[in-house]
């Protein structure tokens, strides 16, 4: 099923858009998270509950992500990272996997259009070698074409697990050390080396990690980057995640913000002596 391309027009216009912007203006009085990460769980349950054709839950999920991007752009959130497809998901039914890959391809074209409207940079994080050549090429092209955009950075984690990301970072660090190594102590891999080579090096660590669908686990998503961030498990399935849920998440963040700011300052003060 194709994503409806008229949706862009619908999101940006109408009285709901005006009302939403008013609410966001009020929210912006307080601190806004810089980076929101999402595990978009519950698409299949959504389709089952609505008695839709199998696979259409993911279409609804893609629409929900599109809406979320617009909301984040209006609210001033700078980074959004979405867990679209895990390496573990390759174990699913091959038909479902193919449907998701087809959906990903359509999304690439829709994101290309959206990137022109709101200066969106798109980044794909994951082991892209596991994807088909066509999808990999389309993804790389979108990354290149949007590399100069800066209003909002969307990272789509596809063919991704954090374990694989760390492994890749270690391999790259080892290669770099082998090529440039002089003294023995320079050849030891450090934390900074690993972080430099992570797929997620394009973005700072998330401020909030949201999981929809009611489960309370990380499923190998951003384990490294979410070490200190606020975790939020929401019972709503992903296709039904809307502006009100986002507002609640941001309010939650604002409630916790003083703790995070104090902790960051305390650590920086002590590190600087």
């Amino acid at each position, binding site marked *: 099923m194709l994503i409806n391309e008229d949706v862009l027009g619908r999101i940006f216009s109408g009285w709901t858009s005006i009302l939403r912007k008013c609410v966001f203006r009020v929210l912006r009085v307080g601190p806004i998270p810089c980076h929101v990460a999402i595990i978009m769980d519950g698409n299949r349950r959504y389709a089952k509950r609505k008695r839709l054709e199998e696979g259409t839950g993911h279409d609804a999920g893609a629409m929900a992500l599109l809406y979320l991007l617009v909301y984040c752009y209006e609210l001033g959130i700078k980074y959004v990272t979405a867990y679209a497809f895990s390496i573990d998901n390759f174990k699913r039914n091959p038909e479902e996997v193919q449907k998701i890959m087809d959906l990903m391809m359509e999304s690439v074209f829709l994101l290309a259009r959206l990137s022109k409207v709101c200066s969106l940079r798109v980044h794909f994080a994951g082991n892209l070698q596991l994807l088909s050549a066509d999808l990999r090429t389309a993804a790389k092209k979108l990354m290149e074409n949007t590399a100069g955009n800066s209003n909002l950075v969307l990272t789509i984690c596809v063919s991704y697990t954090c374990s694989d990301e760390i492994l890749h970072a270690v391999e790259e660090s080892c290669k770099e050390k082998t090529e440039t190594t002089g003294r023995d102590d320079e050849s030891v891999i450090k934390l900074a080396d690993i972080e430099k080579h992570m797929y997620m090096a394009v973005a700072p660590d998330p401020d909030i990690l949201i999981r929809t669908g009611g*489960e309370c686990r990380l*499923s190998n998503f951003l384990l*490294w980057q979410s070490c200190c961030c606020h975790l939020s498990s929401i019972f709503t399935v992903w296709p039904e995640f809307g502006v009100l849920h986002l507002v609640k998440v941001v309010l939650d963040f604002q409630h916790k913000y003083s703790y995070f700011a104090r902790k960051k300052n305390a650590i920086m003060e002590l590190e600087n002596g």
Partner: protein
Amino acid sequence: MLFSLHFSLPPAITPLPFKPLSHVPHHHHTLNMLPSPPVLKSPLCSTMEHFTLNHHGKEEGLDGGVEVDQTLPLGLRRETMPRHVAVIMDGNRRWARSRDLPVRSGYEAGVRSLRTIVELCCKWGIKALSVFAFSSDNWFRPKVEVELLMSLFERGMQEDTGIFFRENIRISVIGDLVKLPQALQELILNLEETTKNNTHFQLIVAVSYSGQYDVVQACQRLALKAKHGHIEPSDIDISLIEQELETNCSEFPRPDLLIRTGGEFRISNFMLWQLAYTELFFAQSLWPDFGEAEFLKALLAFQQRQRRYGC
């Protein structure tokens, strides 16, 4: 960080003894009276009554067909007990402050809580318990507090050695131990060595630990092995990294369940790699108040979860 661990108690407080492992809980019959819970909006908070009775709820002998596991509270199923539970013991200082007690009292109350949980794990068939005693971030606390914690930790290890042997408990300590006082390092090494053959239960204490540090040291060790020709660089894979993590001291390196007390919803750099598919449970209670009832809630909630391991 809002938590730490020490094993010792001051002379003024009588230490609670470990109960013999054959102790049968008295309360499990009361669970028969509880109705089925409603569907919940959020599975996170322990104040949600998120457990159901299953067929084990039937009284033994009444239907003639169902076996009740007498060592487990009613509702818990032996076959889906987590093998490895991890705990972030948060809330000791808040507990003390709320009672106008010194911070030291909060830590001591935390120890009592830990002893209760260790005892329950032994009784209920959980094989390993990892506790986040002192984070690498905790070194940033005031020096006086850090020194207090180190001295309490040292005293506790000395005083509880008998208990570990009596209850056949293996102690492992993970973390960047180089930063600890020398005497404490020696104590730890000695305790690990003397309990290494204990098999009933393993208590893993994370001290001066961070999940990122654990991954970095694992990768450094592998890179060194590759450099010295013991392995090929291309051999480095996820499984090799996992073998070098500090949790390689355990038969079950990946916790099945992580409980964080104190009401905060974050991992705080505890065991990042190992928590990839772990079920998370966030409890509102402060750690010193986290007892048998709260632990039971967490385990029952865990047993309701459908684990997909990423699929």
